[in-house]
C-alpha cells in the first residue's frame, strides 16, 4: 500500500464544510425542529434563593385554556431523581446532587420547581404567572463569609456549607518556604462569570408508548454519558433512548452538563404522551446554565533571591453555588493542581475548598480553574519580580520547565487521585518568539509612561493547556456500496468545525477525495459508545480513533479487492477509489455486496499539553478607569495542526472571551441571593468594537508523543492566561501610583477606585 498524496488535507487551511449551510441560514439547531402534534414546555423557577417549600399551588395554572399539564416534584416519584457527578464521582459528594425538580427546599433563584406543558410557549408562560409558591424564607448564603458563618446551611443532613477540600501536593512546601529568601503572599479574587454561548439550550422529546422508546433531540457534547444518566432517571434501559445531536451553537464547557431540563423534557413527554419542545430563553440561561470561576485564593509563593520559584502554598475557596452537577468539581480541583502551570515549581501544597452557596450551580467554562489559577500565579510572579528588582520576562523564562525535564509531573491531587505529566515542549523557545514578535524590548520603554493622558503598561506570561481526556473515543467507518465513505464518530460538534477536521483526517488516512466522505457524529445511534467533546479532546481522541479504524478498513478493502481480482491481499494496492493488482483494477463502488463496516477505539490515559506565551500592551485613562488593549499577542505550540484556519480562529476567539472575563463579564448577586445581571444588557459580553488588536501565532514545534496524530488538544486554551497578563499590564501602567489590582473584573469603576485610593495615599 502506498499513500497517493500523503497529508494532502491535514495541515492545510481547508475552508469549512459547515459554513455552506450556516451562511445560508440552513443550519439546523434545536429550536428549528418541530415534531407533529408537539406541545411546549416552560419551567417555573424559584424566585427565592433559599427556603423551605410550604405549598405549590398549580390549580389556576392547570385550569388555563391551552395548558395540558403542570408537573411538580411529587409527580416524579416519592423523591425526584437527582443529577449524579460524571467527573470525579466521589461518594462524599452525593449529598450535593441536584434533584430534577426542587424537593422540600429551594436553593437558588432559577431552580426548577414545576414544568408547565401547553399548546404554545406563550400560553405556558401565561400559566407561570398563575402558579403560587409559598416559601419559608431562609437566610441566603451568598459568598465565603456567609457560607462559613453558616447562619443557614443548604444541606442540613451534611451540616455545613463546606462540601469537600481538594489537596494538591508535590515535594515539601513547608521546607521550601522555611528556606525561602522572599515570600509573596496575597488574596486574589476572580468573579463569577459564564460561558454564555449564543444558542440557548433546548430539547424536543418524544415517547413511543407502544415500543417504550424515548427519542431526544438536542443532545450536545456528551450524548452517551447523558443517555446513561437519563436512562437511570427515567428508569428505562439506556438502549431504549436515542439521543440526536443537531447543529449546536457553542459549547465552551457549559454545554457539557446534565441539566434538570435534560430529564424534565423527556419526562414531560412521557407524562403527556405527546412530543414536548422546550427552548431556553436568555433570562433562564443567565440564571440556570452553569456559572463558573467564582473563587478566592489566599496563596503564597516562595522564591530564592535570584528569582527561582521554590514553592506554592495556600488555600482557595470556590463558591460552587447550590449543587454539584456532573462536572462541578473540575474547576476547583484544577485551581490547585494546575497553579504551577508551565513553571518548574518543585514544592506545592495547595488546597481548594468547595463551598455550597445559594447561587446558580457552577461548572466547567473554557479553561476551567486554569483561567483563575493563572491569574493568581502570574500576579504573584510580577509582584515577586518587583520585590526582587528583576525583569519580569527574565524571571519567567528562568523558571520554565525544560524539555529535558519532560515528562514533568505536576502536583498530585486528592481525593479522586490524579497524576499528570507535562508531555513535551520547548517552553523557552516559544517564550523567546513571543518576546520578539511582540517587540518586548522596544515596548518596555512605554512601561508606566503617561502619554496623552493615558498610562501605558505591558506584561508577558506563559501557560499550559491540557487536552485529550481519556479514556477512549470510538469511530466507525463504513465503505458504502457506491464507494463513498461514512464516518460515524463519538465526538460531538459544538461549532468548532468537527465535520471539516474529521473529513480532513479521514481523507488523508483513506487517501480518498474530500467529497466522497461524510462525517456523522454526536448521536447515540452512530457508534456503540462515545465520550464526546470536552477537555480539548475531539481532534486528538476522535481523530486518532479514525486513524485506527482507517487501518482496519483498508485491510478489509484489500481483502475484498484481492478476492475480486483473484490474488493475495498483500499483492494489491489501493488509492482511495480503486483496488489494483498489476494492470487490473476494481472500483471501491461495488467492491463488496455489503457495505464494509469497521469500528475502532482509541484508548489514551495521558493528557496532552499545548503551551504558549502571551503578551499585552494596555493603556489606562485615569479619569474614567477605562483600559484600552493596544495589542494582545499569543504564541502557542500545539504539536500538530489539522486546520490552521480553524485553529487560528479559535485562538483569537479564546483570547477575546478571556478579555470579556477580565474586563466585562460578571454575574452579580445581591445579599438576598437575587441575580442582578439577568439580561444581556447587564451581563456584558465583548462586542466588535471592544478589542480590535489581537494576534495569534500557532506553531508545530513539539508533537505530542501520546497519540498517532502528534496533536495536542488546542483551541480552548488561549483564554487561560488572559486575566493574569492583562492585570499585570494594568499594574505596570499604574506602577508610578503603586496600584496592584488583586481582583477581577477590571471594570472601569474598580480601576478608577484603585487609582483614586492610590492618589489619596500619596497625598
Amino acid at each position, binding site marked *: 500500500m502506498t499513500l497517493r498524496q500523503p497529508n494532502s488535507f491535514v495541515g492545510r487551511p481547508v475552508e469549512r464544510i459547515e459554513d455552506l449551510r450556516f451562511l445560508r441560514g440552513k443550519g439546523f439547531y434545536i429550536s428549528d425542529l418541530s415534531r407533529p402534534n408537539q406541545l411546549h414546555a416552560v419551567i417555573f423557577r424559584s424566585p427565592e434563593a433559599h427556603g423551605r417549600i410550604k405549598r405549590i399551588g398549580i390549580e389556576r395554572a392547570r385550569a388555563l385554556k391551552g395548558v395540558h399539564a403542570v408537573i411538580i416534584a411529587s409527580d416524579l416519584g416519592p423523591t425526584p431523581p437527582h443529577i449524579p457527578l460524571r467527573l470525579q464521582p466521589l461518594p462524599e459528594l452525593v449529598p450535593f446532587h441536584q434533584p430534577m425538580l426542587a424537593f422540600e427546599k429551594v436553593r437558588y433563584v432559577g431552580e426548577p420547581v414545576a414544568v408547565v406543558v401547553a399548546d*404554545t*410557549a*406563550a400560553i405556558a*408562560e*401565561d400559566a407561570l*404567572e398563575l402558579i403560587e409558591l409559598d416559601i419559608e424564607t431562609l437566610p441566603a448564603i451568598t459568598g465565603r463569609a456567609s457560607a462559613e458563618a453558616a447562619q443557614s446551611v443548604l444541606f442540613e443532613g451534611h451540616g455545613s456549607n463546606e462540601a469537600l477540600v481538594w489537596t494538591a501536593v508535590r515535594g515539601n512546601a513547608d521546607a521550601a518556604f522555611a528556606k525561602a529568601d522572599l515570600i509573596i503572599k496575597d488574596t486574589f479574587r476572580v468573579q463569577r462569570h459564564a460561558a454564555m454561548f449564543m444558542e440557548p439550550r433546548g430539547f424536543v422529546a418524544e415517547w413511543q408508548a407502544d415500543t417504550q422508546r424515548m427519542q431526544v433531540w438536542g443532545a450536545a457534547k456528551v450524548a452517551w454519558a447523558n443517555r446513561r444518566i437519563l436512562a437511570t432517571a427515567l428508569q428505562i434501559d439506556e438502549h431504549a433512548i436515542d439521543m440526536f445531536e443537531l447543529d449546536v451553537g457553542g459549547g465552551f464547557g457549559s454545554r457539557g452538563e446534565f441539566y434538570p431540563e435534560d430529564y424534565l423534557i423527556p419526562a414531560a413527554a412521557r407524562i403527556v404522551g405527546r412530543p414536548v419542545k422546550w427552548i431556553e*430563553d*436568555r*433570562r433562564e440561561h443567565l440564571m440556570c446554565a452553569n456559572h463558573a470561576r467564582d473563587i478566592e485564593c489566599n496563596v503564597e509563593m516562595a522564591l530564592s533571591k535570584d528569582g527561582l520559584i521554590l514553592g506554592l502554598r495556600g488555600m482557595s475557596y470556590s463558591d460552587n453555588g447550590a449543587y454539584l452537577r456532573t462536572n462541578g468539581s473540575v474547576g476547583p480541583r484544577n485551581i490547585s493542581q494546575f497553579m504551577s502551570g508551565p513553571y518548574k515549581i518543585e514544592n506545592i501544597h495547595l488546597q481548594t475548598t468547595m463551598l455550597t452557596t445559594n447561587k446558580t450551580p457552577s461548572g466547567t467554562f473554557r479553561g476551567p480553574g486554569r483561567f483563575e489559577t493563572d491569574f493568581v500565579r502570574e500576579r504573584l510572579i510580577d509582584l515577586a519580580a518587583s520585590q526582587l528588582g528583576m525583569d519580569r520576562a527574565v524571571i519567567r523564562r528562568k523558571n520554565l520547565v525544560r524539555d529535558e525535564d519532560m515528562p514533568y509531573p505536576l502536583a498530585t491531587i486528592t481525593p479522586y487521585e490524579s497524576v499528570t505529566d507535562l508531555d513535551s515542549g520547548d517552553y523557552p523557545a516559544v517564550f523567546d518568539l513571543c518576546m520578539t514578535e511582540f517587540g518586548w524590548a522596544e515596548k518596555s520603554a512605554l512601561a508606566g509612561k503617561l502619554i496623552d493622558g493615558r498610562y501605558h503598561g505591558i506584561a508577558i506570561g506563559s501557560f499550559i493547556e491540557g487536552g485529550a481526556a481519556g479514556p477512549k473515543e470510538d469511530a466507525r467507518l463504513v465503505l458504502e456500496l457506491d464507494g463513498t465513505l461514512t464516518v460515524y464518530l463519538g465526538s460531538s460538534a459544538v461549532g468548532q468545525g468537527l465535520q471539516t477536521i474529521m473529513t480532513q483526517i479521514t481523507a488523508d488516512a483513506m487517501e480518498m477525495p474530500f467529497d466522497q466522505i461524510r462525517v456523522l457524529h454526536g448521536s447515540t445511534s452512530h457508534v456503540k459508545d462515545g465520550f464526546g467533546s470536552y477537555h480539548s479532546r475531539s481532534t486528538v481522541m476522535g481523530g486518532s480513533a479514525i486513524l485506527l479504524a482507517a487501518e482496519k478498513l483498508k485491510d478489509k478493502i484489500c481483502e475484498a479487492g484481492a478476492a475480486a481480482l483473484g490474488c493475495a491481499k498483500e499483492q494489491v494496492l489501493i488509492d482511495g477509489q480503486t483496488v489494483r493488482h498489476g494492470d487490473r483494477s476494481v472500483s471501491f463502488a461495488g467492491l463488496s455486496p455489503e457495505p464494509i463496516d469497521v469500528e475502532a477505539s482509541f484508548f489514551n490515559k495521558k493528557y496532552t499539553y499545548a503551551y504558549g506565551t502571551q503578551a499585552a500592551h494596555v493603556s489606562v485613562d485615569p*479619569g*474614567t*478607569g*477605562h483600559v484600552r488593549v493596544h495589542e494582545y499577542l499569543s504564541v502557542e505550540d500545539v504539536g500538530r495542526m489539522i486546520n490552521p484556519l480553524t485553529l487560528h480562529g479559535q485562538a483569537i476567539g479564546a483570547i477575546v472571551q478571556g478579555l470579556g472575563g477580565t474586563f*466585562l463579564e*460578571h454575574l*452579580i448577586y445581591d445579599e438576598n441571593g437575587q441575580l*442582578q*445581571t439577568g*439580561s444581556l*444588557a*447587564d451581563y*456584558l459580553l*465583548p*462586542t466588535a*468594537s*471592544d478589542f480590535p488588536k489581537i494576534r495569534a501565532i500557532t506553531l508545530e514545534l513539539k508533537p505530542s508523543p501520546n497519540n498517532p496524530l502528534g496533536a495536542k488538544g488546542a483551541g480552548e486554551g488561549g483564554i487561560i492566561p488572559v486575566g493574569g497578563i492583562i492585570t499585570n499590564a494594568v499594574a505596570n501602567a499604574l506602577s508610578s501610583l503603586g496600584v496592584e489590582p488583586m481582583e477581577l473584573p477590571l*471594570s*472601569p*469603576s474598580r480601576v*478608577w*477606585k484603585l487609582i*483614586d485610593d492610590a492618589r489619596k495615599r500619596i497625598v
Partner: protein
Amino acid sequence: MKLSPVRYAAPTSVEEAVALLATCDAKIISGGQSLMPIMAFRLASPELLVDLKKIKGLGDIVLDSEGLHLGAKVKWIEIETDVRLKTAHPLLTKAIEHVAHYQIRNRGTVGGSLAHADPASEMPAIAACCDAVISVVGSGGLRKINAADFFVGALQTRLEPDEIIVKILLPPWPATRRWGFQEFSRRRGDFALAGIAAYFDVEPDGRATNAHIAVFGASDYQRRLTGAEAELNGKKPTADTFAAAARAAAAEVDPPSDIHAPADYRRALVETLTGRALADANR
C-alpha cells in the same frame, strides 16, 4: 420570553390615537425599541398597543426661524444622515452617534426616547441642554412643555397617560457656538454611566456666556447643571475655568448607584467628562 397577550391598533390620526389611549391600559408604540424589551420580560403588559405607524406628519425634520423641529417619529438614522444637521445642530448629531446600535438606530425614534425618559439616554440630554420645547397632544388638545419641566425622574415625565408626543423644537443654533459632548459607557452603544452635553457662546471680549451644561446617566433625569454653568459664564474659557466648572458639576449631581457604577465613581466621571466636553468645545 414571549409577550403577554395584547391588543393592537394602528390609527390614522393623532386624535384617534388619543381616543384609544383613553379606553384602557394602553401604550403608544412606534419604533418599539425601548418598549419591546420591557414587554419581553413582562415588566410591562399593557392591554392595548397603539401604533403610530399610519399617522402621517409626525416624521418630519424641519429647519426654520424657530429652530429645528423634529417630529416624534423621526428615527436616529434620519438625524445621522441629514447633512443639514451637521451644521444646523452639530451637538445633536454628535449625541445621536452614541445612541445604541445600528439596528436600533434604524428604528428607534425621538418621541419614543423622550417618552421613555431613560436617565442615561442622549435625546433627553439634548432636550434639557438646549432648552427644547416638547409638543404633546392629549384629550385636552395641544400643549407645549419646556424640557426643564418635562423630565421629573427616572422613566418619569409630565406626559399624561392619554397624551402623545408629536414634536420637539430645538432653538436656533448660531454657527459660532462652542459645544462638546462626552459620554462614558461600558461598551459602544451601552447606556451611559455618565454623560455631559455642553455649549456656550463667546462675547466679543472673549468671555463665555449663555453656558448650557446638561448631565445624563449620573442623575435621576436629564437636567442642566446651573452651578457649573455659573462657573463658566462671564469667564475666559481657559483650562482653569473649565476645571472649576467641572468641580462644580461633580458637586451638584446626586448620582445613583447600580451594578455598573457606584455613585462616587459616577460623580468622578461627571467631573472628568465636563472638563473634557468643555475642552472639546474650546477647540
